[in-house]
């Protein structure tokens, strides 16, 4: 019954839920969500320091929480900016992990496929463990894997939309053709979306807004953990085949008056 670990590069994770660290109502709520979700990996952005900032740094809080820190390249619109941001993240945090984002435009926040491939190639060559945020495009996902990315992170729906899995068929195709973990990132809205991702066979989820912007973020974090576990178990249990017509489960044999 016990499940295998999720392997990302050298790392072995026992939780298949990754969480973002943005837009929680408070730092304490964020920490409570990390605990409730049982996540082992949390994303951070890299931003300019502000003089006079007080209180424990996010870095210190996440280290104390015992999670792996996954720096992202959010806000980068070119491969050059993304590569430099990844290098700054490695220097700041001392990790070769990077969630690579090369965004096409402000309105869609969709990945820029050509910039993404270019940045991924450079970062893999530079020794990074690259987790690219990508379109739900099986061809692009395969190319990213061929370049040497440690995982692929297709979107479920646009970032922050909470629309859930828009194209389950494409996610299945990506998973079917991938030898690296498929971690669905962006657009998930609630627990059932998480269960669907795992039932499709994907290996992990990364959520931020779905938890942080829920009415009760900590309760949603708990629901997400349970949904991940249920969806994953359902996938491993191999669901029944779908049938066009009804098929009675109660045997007809011995039915009275027949």
């Amino acid at each position, binding site marked *: 019954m016990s499940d295998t670990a999720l392997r990302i590069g050298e790392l072995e994770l026992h939780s298949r839920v990754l969480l973002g660290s943005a837009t929680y109502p408070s730092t304490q709520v964020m920490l409570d969500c990390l605990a409730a979700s049982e996540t082992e990996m949390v994303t951070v952005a890299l931003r300019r320091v502000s003089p006079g900032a007080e209180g424990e740094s996010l870095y210190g809080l996440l280290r104390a929480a015992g999670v792996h820190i996954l720096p992202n390249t959010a806000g980068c619109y070119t491969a050059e900016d993304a590569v430099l941001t990844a290098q700054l993240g490695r220097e700041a945090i001392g990790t070769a992990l990077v969630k690579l984002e090369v965004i096409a435009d402000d309105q869609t926040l969709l990945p820029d496929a050509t910039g993404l491939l270019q940045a991924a190639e450079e970062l893999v060559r530079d020794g990074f463990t690259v987790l690219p945020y990508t379109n739900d495009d099986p061809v692009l996902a395969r190319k990213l894997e061929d370049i040497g990315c440690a995982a692929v992170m297709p979107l479920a729906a646009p970032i922050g939309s909470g629309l859930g899995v828009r194209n389950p068929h494409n996610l299945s195709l990506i998973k079917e053709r991938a030898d690296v973990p498929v971690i669905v990132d962006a657009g998930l809205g609630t627990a059932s979306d998480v269960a669907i991702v795992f039932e499709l066979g994907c290996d992990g989820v990364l959520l*931020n807004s779905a938890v942080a912007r829920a009415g009760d973020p900590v309760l949603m974090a708990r629901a997400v953990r349970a949904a991940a576990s249920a969806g994953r178990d359902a996938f491993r249990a191999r669901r029944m085949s779908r049938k066009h017509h009804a098929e009675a489960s109660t045997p007809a044999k011995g039915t009275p008056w027949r």
Partner: protein
Amino acid sequence: MRAKVNGAERELSPGTSVGALVNEMAADAKAVAVAINRAVVPRKEWSAVQVQEGDDIEIIAPFHGG
């Protein structure tokens, strides 16, 4: 000496090291990284590297992100 620090033009005394600038800008320098003119300056070089006239310096740290 003029240099740009996190997007703002600043007057700095000649000979200012990257390390001194980081200490002034960041309360907690634990997880800070620096780029000058779009190249990372490794932490071990912070005390030796001096800011030059016209440098474009970015000092960053982990922040809440998704």
